[in-house]
C-alpha cells in the first residue's frame, strides 16, 4: 500500500510540476497572475514569490523532488495562493473537509440503503414488472450526468419554487448556533438529493447482479426447503451474502464518487473540498490543488486496502481459503 501511495505521489509531482514547468516550459513567473492583475503589481509579485517558494520552483528538479516527497508525507502542503483561500493549505483542507464528508457520507448511506433494499427485491422478482421498471429507472440514473440533474434540481427547486437557496455557502455563512444548523440542513437538501440520485444507480445495478448470483446458490434453496419466510431469506441470507461486491465497488469507485462531488458541490455552491478545488483551478491555486489531488488518491488507495481487509472479515469463506 505504501509503495502505491509513494508512486501516486510521484505521479502527482509529474502532473503538477514536471509537466507544466519542465515539459511544457511554462515560466511560473508569468503564469501565476490572477485574472485582472497586471504583471507589475507589488501584490502579484508577492503572490508569485509565495507560489515559487510554496512549490519549491526555485530549486533544481532533483532537490525539488525530495523536498516535495517529504512535504507530501508530512502534510506540509505549503500556502494557498490566488486570493480565494488564505493561510496554510492543510488548515483550509481541515476546515472544509467536514462539509464534503457530511455530503458524501449521508448520500452514500442513503443510496446504500435504497440500492440494497431495491436490489434484493428486484433480484427476487427478476423479470417481473417491478424489476423491469426499477431496472430502467436506475439505468437512467446511472447514465445521467451529475451536472444535468444538478442544474435541473437547482432550476426548479431553487430558482422556481424557491424551496432551497441557489448558493449553499452564502445561505448559511455568518450564522451560528441552531440557526446555522437549520440553514445548513436546508442548504444540504438539494446537493444531497442530487448526489444520491447519481450514485444510487450504479450501486443498485451491482446489488441486483450480486443478489441474483446469491439466489441461485444451494443454501438459499436449502433455506427455502427449511420453510423460512421469504422475508427472512431475502433480508438475512441473501442480503448478507450479496452485499460484499458493493463494498469493493464503492472502494474502487470512490474516486468517481469524489469527482461527482466536485461537480455537485460546484453547482450548488456547497463549500466542500470539491467546490474549493474548482475555485482553486480558477485562481491557479496549485498548492491547494496538488494537496487535494494527493489526498483524494491516498483516500482511494486506503479505501481499497480497507475493503480488502473487510472482505475477509465479512466473508469467512475468503479467510479460510474457500
Amino acid at each position: 500500500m505504501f509503495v502505491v501511495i509513494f508512486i501516486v505521489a510521484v505521479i502527482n509531482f509529474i502532473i503538477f510540476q514536471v509537466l507544466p514547468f519542465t515539459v511544457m516550459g511554462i515560466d511560473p513567473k508569468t503564469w501565476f497572475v490572477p485574472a485582472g492583475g497586471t504583471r507589475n503589481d507589488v501584490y502579484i509579485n508577492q503572490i508569485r514569490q509565495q507560489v515559487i517558494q510554496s512549490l519549491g520552483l526555485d530549486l533544481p528538479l532533483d532537490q525539488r523532488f525530495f523536498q516535495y516527497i517529504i512535504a507530501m508525507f508530512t502534510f506540509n502542503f505549503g500556502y494557498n495562493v490566488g486570493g480565494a483561500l488564505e493561510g496554510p493549505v492543510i488548515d483550509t483542507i481541515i476546515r472544509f473537509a467536514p462539509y464534503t464528508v457530511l455530503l458524501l457520507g449521508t448520500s452514500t448511506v442513503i443510496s446504500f440503503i435504497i440500492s440494497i433494499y431495491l436490489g434484493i427485491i428486484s433480484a427476487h422478482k427478476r423479470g417481473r414488472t417491478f424489476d423491469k421498471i426499477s431496472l430502467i429507472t436506475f439505468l437512467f440514473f446511472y447514465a445521467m450526468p451529475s451536472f444535468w440533474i444538478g442544474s435541473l434540481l437547482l432550476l426548479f427547486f431553487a430558482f422556481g419554487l424557491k424551496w432551497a437557496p441557489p448558493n449553499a455557502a452564502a445561505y448559511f455563512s455568518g450564522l451560528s448556533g441552531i440557526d446555522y444548523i437549520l440553514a445548513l440542513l436546508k442548504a444540504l437538501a438539494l446537493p444531497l438529493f442530487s448526489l444520491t440520485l447519481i450514485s444510487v444507480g450504479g450501486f443498485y445495478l451491482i446489488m441486483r447482479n450480486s443478489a441474483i448470483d446469491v439466489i441461485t446458490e444451494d443454501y438459499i434453496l436449502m433455506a427455502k426447503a427449511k420453510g423460512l419466510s421469504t422475508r427472512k431469506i431475502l433480508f438475512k441470507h441473501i442480503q448478507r451474502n450479496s452485499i460484499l461486491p458493493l463494498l469493493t465497488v464503492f472502494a474502487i469507485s470512490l474516486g468517481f464518487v469524489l469527482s461527482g462531488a466536485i461537480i455537485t458541490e460546484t453547482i450548488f455552491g456547497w463549500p466542500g473540498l470539491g467546490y474549493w478545488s474548482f475555485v482553486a483551478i480558477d485562481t491557479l491555486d496549485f498548492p491547494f490543488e496538488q494537496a487535494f489531488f494527493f489526498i483524494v488518491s491516498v483516500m482511494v488507495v486506503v479505501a481499497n486496502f480497507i475493503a480488502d481487509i473487510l472482505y475477509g472479515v465479512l466473508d469467512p469463506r475468503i479467510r479460510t481459503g474457500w
Partner: protein
Amino acid sequence: MPARRQNALKILLKNKIGVTGLAIILFFTFLAVFAPFITSNDPNQVFVANPWAIPQWATIFPPYQGWPTNMQLVSSDITSWNNVIIYHSHVTISTGIASIPNSILAVSRYSSSEVSNKFLEINVTLPATDIPENIAVLNSSTTFTYNFKPPYNFLFGLFVYPLEVKNVTDFYFLITLKTPSGKVYHLTNYLIMATSVQEVISYRNGLSLNHWNPVSLTTILPDVNVAALGSGGEGIPNTGLIYLNETGTYTYTIQLDAITSSSVGFLSLRISNPYLFVLGRAYGLMGTDFEGRDIWSQFVYGARISMEVGILAGVFSVLVGAFLGLFAGFVEGILSEVTMRITDIFLVIPFLPLAIVFITVISQNAFLAQTIYFWLIVLFVIFGWPGVTRVIRSQVLSLKQRGYIEAAKVLGAKGRYIIRRHLLPGVMGLVYANIALSVPGFILTEAALDFLFPGVSETPTWGRMLSEAFEHAAAAAYYDYAWWWFIFPGLAIVIVSLSFIMLGYALDEIFNPRLRGR
C-alpha cells in the same frame, strides 16, 4: 467457436436490446456526420428567432397555443402600399425597379423569394425658412392581420437610396403602429433619434448618398422609447408584448419627414423593401437559447464532439488495455506482476480532478488549446485502459486452462500461433463489449469537462450547452424554466450512454453464453 463468431452478427440482430442500442448509436452518428445538411443555421448564429423561443411543435399544447413563429407581417413591395402625399404640389412620386445587394437586405430577414425589387422614388422641393421646420412629406401605410399571441420582439425598417440632398437640414422616417382598438404607438420619433440611435435612421447621422442604406430597428435593444413603456423581462425589453398584444387588423405607417434650411431645398430619394419581422417565440425543433441561437443546430453539432471523443477514446483505450491484458495473461511471472501493479496504480488515480488540472495546463498554450479534444482523447486513453486489462487478463488466464489450448501446446504450437488462433478469438468478444461499455464513461466525462470549462472550444457541445443553460438558470425561471434548453442535451447524453451500455451488454451476452437469461 468460429461458427459462433460468424453468427455473431445474426445473433446480435435477434437481440432486441442490442438492436435498439445499435439503432440509437447509428442515429446519433448520422446526426454527427451530416450535421451541416440537417441543420439550417450555424450553431453560433444569434437571433435566428427570439431568445428563449420554445420548440415549434410545443405550440400544439394549450399553454403555448398561438405563440408566433418567425414571420413577415407586411408586403415587401412598397408600390403596393397606400402611398399618400402630404406635402401637396411640392412632391412627386414614381416607381421603378432596382436590385439591392443581398448582403444589405439580410437585416430584413426576407428570403430571396420574398424580396421585392420595386422601389418608390420621391422628389421634394422644400421652402426656405429662417428657423428649421419639420415637414411631413409622404405617408406610406399598409394593413395586416395578426392573430397570434404577442411576440417578445420584432425587427422593422426599410431601405433608402438618397439620390440628391441639397439644402436639407435632415430627413428621417417616423414609423407608427395602430392597433385594432385604435391605439397608436410611435415606434420611432425624432426626439429619440436625436439622442441614442439617430445614426441608424436619420440622414444627417449615417445614411450615405448614392447607396442603398438599411434603416433597421428592433425592439430588442432600446431603439424604441422603452422607458415610456417599461421593460418586459429580465434585462431584455420585450416590448413586442405591448405593441402587438391585440389580435385583428393593424395599420403600419412609415412617414417621411424633412427639415428645412435657410435656402430652398431639394430632396430626392428611393425607398424599398419595408419590413416588419416578428421574431418567433416558437422556433424549430428545439427552440432557441438566451441569445436566440438555434438549439437544434447546437444539439446536432454537439453530437459530433461527444461521439467522436467517446468512440475514439473507447476504441483506443480498450485496444491498449486488451493488448496489455493479453500480455499480462500470456507471459506469466515478474512481467505480468509488474503490469498488474501498474494497472492497480492507474486504477486509483481520480480521473476528473486530473483532467481538470490537465485542461488548465493545456489551455495556457494557445497551440495546444486549439487541439484540446485530441489531447483529451489522449488523456482518456492513458487513464482508461486499466479496467479492461484486468478483465482481459483474467479471461486469458481462464482460457489457458482449457483443454484445447493445452492440447495445442502439447502438439508443439508456438506462442504466437496460440495467441492468434486461440486466445485472440476468445477475447475479441470481450474487447467489443468493453469498447461499447467504456464509451459512456468518456462521453460523460467529456461533457462534465465542457460543463466546467465552457470556454474551451468554439464548437458547441452538449456539455457547453448545459453549462450555458445553467449559467442562465436564474433568467430561465422567467421563461418557463427554458425546459427545452435543459432537457434535450442532457437527455441526449443519457440516451447515447444507455445505448452504448445496451449494445455492450448484448455483445457480452452473445460472446459469453453463460450470461444468457440474466
